[in-house]
């Protein structure tokens, strides 16, 4: 099956600053694809070029098999999108907004169905300016689904939401995945990307640094894991240093530690050493490499800096 989205060498500059510097990626059908990066990395600019909010300087954009730069209106018939902040007229109700936006498409979902699905029935006839942040964002998601889209674009949908609203939205996005929707999600929350996305692209300075499933990115990382342990009596530091595949060995009384890239090999070797010296293992902690560690390794900076 051909990819739902194919982006090739996308570029966009603002007054000499290149916000998108040759971005290329593909999104497969039914996949939730995340773009992870700090603010100003170029995620939103890339997404806005794809959904037709901005005219790219160069590059090709193919969405659902359609050249999005040549036929943006046709692409818009097939996609749904929720921006970072969705604003509507202050006095419009959710029901009216869904009816209005539904009228713009060849096919649309009845407002009542969407209100039910996104738990907005109680607020269906409340003016937009009386809704909470989470309710507004749920309405934005409902609007994104008003045309039964083949592909959904979510631009940092949980930014600024309280933890409960964020959890609710995560639930909605997880449901999209269960329903087989293809989703492009931009976020600067690593846990959100890790939890929701099948694949992610780490973006920085307008470029995609790497792309892959979160576990593959971690696995492919050159970072080492820290292993800390406690024994019944001190271990010989020189023997510990001879274990294969470890670095930075250290022993401080009954506490010892080392770093390794291959935990599956290093741990059996440690156990064998302790048995040979008749030292009992009292405790063991293996540090986990996180996506954030990978991000810092790749970009040289923390995500929320």
């Amino acid at each position: 099956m051909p990819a739902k989205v194919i982006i090739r060498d996308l570029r966009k500059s603002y007054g000499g600053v290149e916000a998108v510097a040759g971005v290329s990626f593909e999104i497969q059908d039914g996949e939730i694809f995340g773009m992870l990066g700090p603010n100003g990395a170029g995620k939103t600019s890339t997404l806005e070029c794809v959904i037709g909010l901005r005219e790219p300087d160069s590059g090709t954009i193919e969405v659902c098999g359609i050249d999005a730069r040549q036929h943006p209106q046709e692409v818009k018939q097939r996609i749904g999108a929720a921006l970072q902040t969705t604003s509507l007229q202050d006095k419009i109700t959710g029901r009216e907004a869904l009816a209005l936006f539904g009228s713009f498409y060849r096919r649309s979902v009845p407002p009542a169905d969407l209100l039910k699905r996104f738990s907005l029935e109680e607020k269906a006839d409340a003016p937009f300016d009386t809704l909470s942040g989470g309710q507004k964002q749920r309405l934005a998601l409902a609007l994104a689904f008003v045309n039964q889209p083949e592909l959904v674009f979510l631009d940092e949908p949980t930014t600024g939401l309280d933890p409960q609203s964020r959890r609710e939205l995560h639930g909605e996005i997880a449901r999209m995945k269960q329903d087989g929707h293809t989703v492009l999600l931009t976020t600067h929350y690593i846990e959100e990307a890790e939890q929701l996305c099948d694949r992610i692209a780490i973006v920085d300075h307008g470029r995609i640094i790497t792309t892959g499933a979160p576990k593959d990115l971690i696995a492919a990382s050159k970072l080492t894991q820290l292993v800390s342990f406690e024994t019944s009596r001190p271990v010989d530091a020189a023997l510990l240093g001879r274990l294969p595949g470890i670095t930075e060995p250290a022993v401080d009384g009954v506490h010892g530690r080392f770093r390794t890239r291959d935990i599956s090999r290093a741990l059996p070797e440690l156990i064998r050493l302790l048995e040979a010296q008749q030292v009992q293992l009292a405790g063991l902690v293996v540090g986990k490499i996180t996506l954030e560690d990978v991000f810092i390794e790749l970009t040289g900076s923390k995500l929320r800096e």
Partner: protein
Amino acid sequence: MNGDLREIVVVTLRMYVRNRMALAFSYVFPVLFLLAFLVLYKDDEPLLIRHMGELLTVTILGGACFGLPTTMVSEREHGVWRRYRLSPVPPARIIFGTLLARYLMILVAGILQVIACMLIGGWTPEHPFQLWVAFTLVTLALLGLGLVIAALADTVPAVQALGQCIFLPMLMLGGVAIPLSAYSEVSWLLHLSAFFPGRYAVEVMQQCAQGDGLGPVWFSGLAVVLTGLGAGVTGAKLFRWDAHQRFLTGNKKAWLLATVGVWILIGVGAEAKRMTTKVPGRPSLKKISAPVEPAPPPQSSAPVPPTPTPPAPAPQVEVKAEPVVAPPPPVVVTTPAPVETAPAPPAPTPAILPAAVPPVAAAKTETPPANPAPAPVAAEPWKAYTKVDFARLDIANVPPDNGNVTPIAAANDEPDMSQRADLAQIESALPKWGPAQVTDRVQMVRNILYIAGTLDESQTNTERFVPYLVMNYLQTRIPTEELTQILCWIANHPNDGDASAAFRIQELGVFANVDEQDIPEIRRRNQWYATKFVWWLLGW
């Protein structure tokens, strides 16, 4: 209507109804303007009909300069339009839907305003359907300007500033709130007003409310349509989905010329049209530049006849008559009492007229005799008048055309719609007016002059245009030479004849408040107008 367009219109109208400030702005302000006009023009009869064009234009301008762009820019600032942009609906549909909704809002305000004026004034529009057409054209044209404002302004406060830049000049200089007739003595303002679309908007709607419909004001109708097209093109080309989308770069700036250029084009066209077209009711006469030094009397080859001053014994009318001949040379006036100290008595009766005086003064009858016998020359002393007599008229002491007394509109001074309506009313009623039917030509000319003199004395707003109408009427009925002689006679004998015509001006459908005590002043004005007309006819 497509489903999406219907939804846009319905939602826009709902938002409008839910916004109390917008409602107040759209419906309370027109009422305030209506009340202001009611106070200003409380003496109009019927009330308000002469200002419908102005009232409706103010209402439309308010919606176009503030209502539409404020809504558009506010929604754009909030990102509503950006959300629209995510959908496949084309921008033209959004714009058209928004304009249509705004048009409906303004239409309701306009209908309410017309109904209120009809109830207050007790009239109905002359051409209701054409009034709706004109209203629609004007609304769309001015809404186009609203689109331009929305495109230029980044914020709502900027809309207010830009809106005022169009709204106020249109009101003050474009003839929307202040009638152009108020600028009659400041000709550059009149020229300037030709470059403001508000003037044409007022004209087309006024002509439909009280006039001959759109036909006679085709140029103004065209100006309105062109204004709308120019603004529409600019508004569409500079349209922005979101506030950060800058347009003042590259060639986009040039699209502003589509709006400004059309205004200039229309103004130039109007000025050119003014120079090549006569105002209805205005004869092709030379403009008087009074006061002027009288030209030296042309020498007639014929022997100079004696001054045709009626011979003694002059009746009391003639004795007190004020001949406006220049001081002596050869002629000695019978009793040269100054006008100021010689108020004319009431009109003489035939019984006291001398035989030498033609039946001019006695001609009171409105029904001509079945077979009027031609008057003998001896009974028509004015027929003896020549250029020598014309030249002796005291033109130097006649008030100037651009003053308050006996004014005559300058060649570039156009009547506004209200004035046109009054002039048209007089023009249509004049042929059937009793005083215009008298068989005595001198009295008939006097009676017609009373229209100019009385309206001048009453300071009606048409006073400076009426002289053209009067001369048009006289010139089409009396040979020029004869008319010149009669006018000269009247100038020399202002207090002769019957003055009852002054009291019958209202039969022409215009308001004029005349008392018996006004008659001497009116006679004096007739005298001055007669003098001006003589010089006019002679091309001096």
